[in-house]
């Protein structure tokens, strides 16, 4: 694996013409980084993978949401984002209580930034682990490798939302939270999956 390079906001990246990925901006035909993150560069594409940040909704994302408030014709949902969303009662078959956790997919984002949800699933009693949305790719891993390791070694049921909220019900919740903390804290390092596997196997019996 090639060495990872960390860049900070305002760092000059390149003066070549490249396709712009996330977290970069262009000024006077030069490309700069706009967040603290890991540089990811290829001959025709450049982007920075952020190490922290707020979630911005995009269509197709699966989210963990919590019912925050009930209004006359729908529910206000919060999902670890600068803005809340509204779910009309007409799309639901049953009544929701405040505090219910649901998993839903963003069907569409309209012009005035309001979000339409579909594939709504009500999750049973569990716990939510909250982190930044930028850590989610590391928690899932390549081909869900990390997620499977976490599930097997702690006998858990885990649902990961793209918004950085992770719902779980586990037989060993303390170990799972410790493992998730480990992933979040070391998300910029290489070879994380093997280290987490070792960590879980070492601490499983305790």
């Amino acid at each position, binding site marked *: 694996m090639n*060495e*990872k*390079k*960390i860049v*900070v*906001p*305002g*760092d*000059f990246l390149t003066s070549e013409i490249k396709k712009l990925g996330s*977290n970069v*901006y262009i*000024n006077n035909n030069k490309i*700069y980084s*706009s*967040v*603290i993150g890991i540089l990811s560069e290829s001959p025709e594409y450049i982007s920075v993978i*952020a*190490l*922290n*940040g*707020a979630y*911005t909704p995009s269509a197709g994302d699966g989210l963990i949401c919590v019912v925050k408030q009930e209004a006359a014709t729908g529910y206000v949902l919060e999902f670890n984002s*600068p*803005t*809340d969303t509204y779910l009309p009662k007409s799309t639901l078959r049953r009544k929701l209580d405040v505090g219910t956790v649901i998993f839903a997919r963003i069907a569409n984002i309209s012009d005035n*930034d309001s979000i339409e949800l579909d594939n709504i699933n009500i999750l049973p009693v569990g716990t939510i682990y909250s982190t*930044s949305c*930028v850590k989610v790719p590391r928690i899932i891993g390549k081909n869900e490798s990390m997620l499977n390791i976490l599930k097997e070694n702690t006998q858990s049921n885990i649902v990961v939302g793209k918004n950085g909220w992770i719902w779980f019900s586990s037989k060993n919740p303390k170990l799972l939270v*410790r493992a998730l*903390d*480990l992933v979040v*804290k*070391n998300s*910029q*390092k*290489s*070879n*994380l999956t093997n*280290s*987490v596997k070792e*960590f879980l196997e070492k601490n499983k019996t305790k």
Partner: protein
Amino acid sequence: MTKRLDGRKNDELRPMKVELGVVKSADGSCYLEWGNNTVIATVHGPRPIFPKHLANSEKAVVDYRYRMAPFSVGERKSPVPAKRDKEISLVSGFSLESAIQVEKFPNTVIDIDTVILSSNAGTRAAAITAASLACADAGLPMNGIVSAVASGRANGEFILDLTKEEEDAEDAVDTAIGVLMPQKEIVLLQMDGFVKKEDWKKMISIGLKGAEKVYDFQKNALLKKYPVDGDINE
């Protein structure tokens, strides 16, 4: 050239110490010791803005708060925000707004709170330096980092990063400079005292060089938080 009271050179900064992510409930935070100044800066947001009529549908509102703790100065300071606190909050907010890409978060607010725990001149510069690190720590998209420093004149010498004793000199002039790095755009400029035009230029050039040193320090602080190699442990 006479030596300064604490033995520094004229263009030398006071020793700095920094820690990021000290406030767990905040999205980003920074603790900064700069000489005898101590600052804690936190960033919350972007988050929904209340009351709604304050919202801007084109960009995020930056709500910067500069406050001095009652115990930060020799004699007790009233915790009621004074005119000075409000003015510094306003201009420092503008300087950070020029660094943050606010147009990406319409109808929201970014709350930046800085508290001075201990003060010894140059607190607004320390507060902006810490706040800008906290913003970067929170992962806000920014065009650059704001580095702020004070430069000025005391006893006929042009010096960088004045202490309280130097600020109390008879002919003292004090300029706070905030620079958006690495673009080197001046985003904050305030001055106390009377000065000639040539002397003013000297003070600015000292300040700009000082800001570069502060920027190097800020950059190292950010890189130190995320070590790429090393063992993976709790």
